[in-house]
């Protein structure tokens, strides 16, 4: 509840540079056992509640379930199962290789590996692939059917009329030759990324074309033996599994993986401290951090995330339709104070710009600090300068509603800004809404939200994920609850630059990244956001857990760790 955003993996469109570079080398180096520790035993994971969303792999959209689905199911391609930047590479999974698109990027042909079986004993066939993609539309409520997969020929018609969906022309499957050919309506350089996430994991033909309460059989080393949202999820070994690519789907270590629900987070932490359980999914309570860091330091793993926390200022309504007012707030914001709210400098890094560190196109840039320097780091607020800019903007005295949700940390951030804006001369009030409605509420331009807290976690690494999706002209849909450009920012020259970078990215990833870095600066100068910080992820595991790996894509690689 506290860190809502971690439950919501981010849906993002954009060109992926990494894809292009990964396409070439589908390496098959080591087929060895996973690093560190032995196999066997039962790994116990603790979470307050079952994944929100749905048990159905084609509907669920949470990190919590995706972290399990990656080792119960496979896509045609996969993100390499490893830590570090390597973990963002696309490698072949059910397909024998990552295809190079033909027909101007509109056709992808995959050859399936033979002899792969689902956990129900059925052998994987090409027709299962077509079935999977038709089901994605037929269930009618897959979140990204209409934003990611409608690029497949016939997809748009399927979104309109899910029940009668047919992808006969879009996904051509040939069981005899074991090949699948995708036909797209336009060139889509990030299509492979879309195939590597759980929505596109292959399910056996015959799975009901409606939402299921237990994830159907998959091809991974484990399968869902039990899914009881009030008690536990139980994953056991799939006896039909054999390793075909340790990059894409290595064998797992524990024999059984249990995810138990219903404890309070306090109790979860205590159980892991005592060795009764192995990992806490939820955010660790702030008042336990000191204790953990002094007594259980070597059971803690902290990894930076490619994510950003920000406050969007609506550039279309007063007072933040004034550039000076927006820049003034940016100068006056004490990002250290906000980092303290989040848990301190070890758990977050202040930032001024849109793109997070370690991201394609990232070049450190921070104009909104005391003594700006070429290092681009934020050092301290410059309140005097901020006040001066706000005074010059002539917006003093305006009423501002600071919108956040009611989760502790988010509300505290809201309260900080209420204080700051009042000090700058505005009349600020807090508007803390239920997490269930806050994000859509901010998006709808009818609600005229002036100042809205939000956060964004990458789905796969591409600069446009942040810049074009959150601040592009097309992402602002007036009067809609689905309009991710909360700042309502649309700058035509910058948009032209973005379109250019998108095109460049198909052929020249490095050049495109330089263009994105310039766009990042340009947007930051326009100050549609107050960027607060880039969060880090704290994992707390039990003493017996060995071989902890953190993938930038899937976070803690659960089945690769060992409890023996």
């Amino acid at each position: 509840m506290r860190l809502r955003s971690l439950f919501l993996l981010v849906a993002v469109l954009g060109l992926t540079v990494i894809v292009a570079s990964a396409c070439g080398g589908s390496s098959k180096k080591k087929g060895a056992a996973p690093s560190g520790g032995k196999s066997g035993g039962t790994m116990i994971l603790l979470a307050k509640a079952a994944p929100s969303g749905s048990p159905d792999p084609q509907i669920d959209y949470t990190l919590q379930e995706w972290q399990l689905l990656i080792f119960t199911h496979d896509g045609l391609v996969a993100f390499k199962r490893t830590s570090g930047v390597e973990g963002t590479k696309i490698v072949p999974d059910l397909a024998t290789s990552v295809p190079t698109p033909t027909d101007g990027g509109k056709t992808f042909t995959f050859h399936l590996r033979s002899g792969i079986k689902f956990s129900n004993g059925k052998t994987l066939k090409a027709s299962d692939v077509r079935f999977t993609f038709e089901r994605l539309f037929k269930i009618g409520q897959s979140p990204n059917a209409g934003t990611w997969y409608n690029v497949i020929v016939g997809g748009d018609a399927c979104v309109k009329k899910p029940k009668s969906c047919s992808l006969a022309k879009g996904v051509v499957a040939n069981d005899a030759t074991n090949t699948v050919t995708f036909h797209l309506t336009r060139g889509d350089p990030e299509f492979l990324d879309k195939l590597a996430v759980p929505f596109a994991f292959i399910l056996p033909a015959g799975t009901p074309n409606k939402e299921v309460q237990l994830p159907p059989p998959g091809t991974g080393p484990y399968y869902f033996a039990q899914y009881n949202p009030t008690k536990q999820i139980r994953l056991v070994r799939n006896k039909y599994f054999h390793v075909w690519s340790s990059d894409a789907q290595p064998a797992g270590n524990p024999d059984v993986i249990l995810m138990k629900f219903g404890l309070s987070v306090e109790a979860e932490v205590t159980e892991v401290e005592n060795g009764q359980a192995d990992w806490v999914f939820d955010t660790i309570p702030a008042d336990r951090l000191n204790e953990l860091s002094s007594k259980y330091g070597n059971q803690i793993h902290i990894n930076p995330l490619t994510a950003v926390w920000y406050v969007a200022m609506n550039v279309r309504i007063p007072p933040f339709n004034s550039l000076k007012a927006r820049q003034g707030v940016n100068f006056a914001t004490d990002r250290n104070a906000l980092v303290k709210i989040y848990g301190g400098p070890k758990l977050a890094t202040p930032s001024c710009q849109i793109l997070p560190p370690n991201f394609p196109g990232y070049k450190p840039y921070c104009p909104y600090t005391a003594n700006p320097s070429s290092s681009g780091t934020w050092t301290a607020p410059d309140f005097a300068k901020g006040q001066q800019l706000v005074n010059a903007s002539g917006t003093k005295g305006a009423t501002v509603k600071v919108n956040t949700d009611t989760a502790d940390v988010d509300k505290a951030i809201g309260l900080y800004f209420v204080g700051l804006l009042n000090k700058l001369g505005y009349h600020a009030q807090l508007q803390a809404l239920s997490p269930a409605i806050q994000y859509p509420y901010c998006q709808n331009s009818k609600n005229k939200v002036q100042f809205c807290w939000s956060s964004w976690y990458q789905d796969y690494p591409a600069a446009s994920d942040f810049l074009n999706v959150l601040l592009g002209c097309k992402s602002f849909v007036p009067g809609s609850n689905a309009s991710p450009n909360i700042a309502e920012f649309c700058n035509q020259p910058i948009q032209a630059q973005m379109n250019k970078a998108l095109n460049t990215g198909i052929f020249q990833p490095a050049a495109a990244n330089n263009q994105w870095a310039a766009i990042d600066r340009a947007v930051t100068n326009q100050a549609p956001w107050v960027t607060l910080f880039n969060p880090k992820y704290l994992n707390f595991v039990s003493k017996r857990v060995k071989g902890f790996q953190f993938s930038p894509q899937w976070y803690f690689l659960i089945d690769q760790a060992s409890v023996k």
Partner: protein
Amino acid sequence: MLAFTVRRLVGLVAVMFALSVLVFLIFFATPGIDPARQMAGRNPSPDTIKNIRHEFGLDRPLPVRYALMMEHMFISRDLISYGSHTRVVPQIISATPVTLSLVVGAAVLWVLFSIVFGVAAAVLRGTFFDPLLMVLALIGISMPVFWLGEVANLITQDKLHGSVFSWVPPPGYTPLTQNPWQWFLHLLIPWLTLSVLYIGFYARVLRANLIETENEDYVRTARAKGISERRVLLRHTLRTSMITFVSLFGLDFGVLVAGGALLTEVVFGLPGVGQLTYNSLTGLDLPVIMTTVVYAAFFITLASAAVDLVYAWLDPRVRPT
């Protein structure tokens, strides 16, 4: 009797109906609420939202939506939560034993202790102990249960966890069927916390009733007949005094089973009906809210009818209404 039962049944259904309609209307009158958007995830296309709206009947008129929801709740019993997309009825069914464990245990404690304290205070009237017990009871009544729970957590989980209270497990719940001893350990502190208020309250009620009854004619007669003080107390005074006690108990028990133990469940991390209610409210998850409201209304009205019935049976002077 039959007429009474029928009337109360009709009343029960009417209250449940009225409440569910009210809750339903309040929910949809709340601005910003868009269940289809809520279910659609982070960045859906308008078509997907439309599909979901259609799939869940959210594009139908309000009365139809209400009827559909009731159909899914009572007849096909496959009502789906907006938040988790899982069935609601099994959630309530699995939360009920937790709440029952908490409330029954606390009820046993509060009935036992309040009778002991109430009788002791009445018998020791005129001594130093009566006012002492009554002040203690008042203090018990005056403490917010969630605060008491926090202080209990502070002492048993932190300050004295290293010594006296090392046996206290971390807050949470273990089912009785899984491990009875752990079940007991997990619930002991919550039981005590929840029962403190009721012990104080019932002890005071009982004391007052005992004193009142002592002066009734039939008690005087019994005394005059030379029956021992103890027999008078147990056979006559206490029995009559229990009428109020029992009826109060019925109401409080009903309210607690219906989710009234919410605060205790939240403080001690017990996944019962109260916790479920609270989570569904903060998540604005209408199907779960509706189910818990109907569940609660059922128990509360049922308890109130049961109390009237028992009352009439214990005290024939009162006609059930």
